[in-house]
């Protein structure tokens, strides 16, 4: 009796060690790939990191349910994807209540001065944005500003933008996924657009406006 319970205890402890070992290895192997994916979907660095950590905690808790016939990577990405959806749905619900509308127009319907579009000294050639004789997206200084502006979007708008521009999915699919109404979705995209436009204007185009092109 006694020896059996020692044996069981020993096996459990052995399992725990294997589990810790496996998890440690997986964290080393897959964190980077998972983080890239999470950052693509939610944009916010802190949030993406938390989601990856949650993924491994869930993997830890569900370790016994993992079956070797699927690859570890696929399994982990599946967990992460669920975590991302959960997170975005919560963000959307909360955002609807807390985020104030952007006001870009005066009461009589004119652009407010700070929102009024100023000329951007770039043009479009064959679907590419060109600045002088350079592709704008090839300019590292611009990319830095662009990324910062994207990072400053509210969580809700960032989620919509990422879903729209990365995954090439239809508005309808995205709405189902995020559990929001189409009107809210369009409002968020609109909001993202105005805010990005303003941010790029302030931090890029305004400073390049007076340079000879």
């Amino acid at each position, binding site marked *: 009796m006694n020896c059996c319970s020692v044996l069981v205890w020993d096996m*459990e*402890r052995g*399992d*725990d060690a294997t589990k*810790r070992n496996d*998890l*440690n290895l997986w*964290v*080393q192997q897959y*964190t*980077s790939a998972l*983080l*890239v994916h999470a*950052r*693509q979907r939610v944009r916010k*660095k802190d949030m993406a*990191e938390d989601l*990856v*950590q949650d993924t*491994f*905690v869930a993997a*830890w*808790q569900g370790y*016994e349910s993992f079956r070797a016939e699927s690859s570890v990577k696929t399994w982990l990405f599946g967990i992460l994807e669920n975590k991302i959806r959960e997170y975005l749905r919560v963000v959307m619900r909360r955002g609807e209540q807390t985020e104030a509308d952007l006001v*870009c*127009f005066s009461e*009589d*319907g*004119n*652009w407010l001065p700070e929102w*009024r*579009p*100023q*000329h*951007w000294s*770039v043009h*479009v050639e064959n*679907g*590419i*944005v060109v600045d002088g004789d350079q592709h*704008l*997206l090839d300019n590292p200084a611009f*990319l830095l500003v*662009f990324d910062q502006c*994207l990072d400053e979007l509210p969580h809700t708008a960032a989620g919509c*933008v*990422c879903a729209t*521009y*990365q*995954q090439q999915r239809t*508005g309808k699919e995205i709405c189902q996924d995020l559990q929001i109404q*189409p009107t809210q979705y*369009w409002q968020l995209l*609109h909001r993202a*657009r105005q805010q*990005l*436009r303003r941010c*790029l204007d302030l931090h890029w185009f305004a400073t390049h406006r007076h340079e000879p092109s």
Partner: protein
Amino acid sequence: MNAFLSSFMLSCQRANALSELRTHRPLSLTQHVQLRLHLAVCSACREFERQRHILDLLQRQHLSADALTQDLPNADSRDLVTRIQQHLDSLPPQKP
């Protein structure tokens, strides 16, 4: 005539709303004409339309999945690896 025209002319805000609407469903003929008219006379809203197109291209090209995979600094994920490992180590063994 003037009163008729001005009731037909859109404010920038209204024009903006219509041009937003146009991205997800077709406008009615009246709406279409109203928007065209407004854009014909309003340089700010014309520039807005241009910027919308530019932003759309920039986002599509910059956020596409392949564009993003390259630019993650390694140090970022190294710190995170350590953080997660420490967190997992702190979890108690689970009861089966």
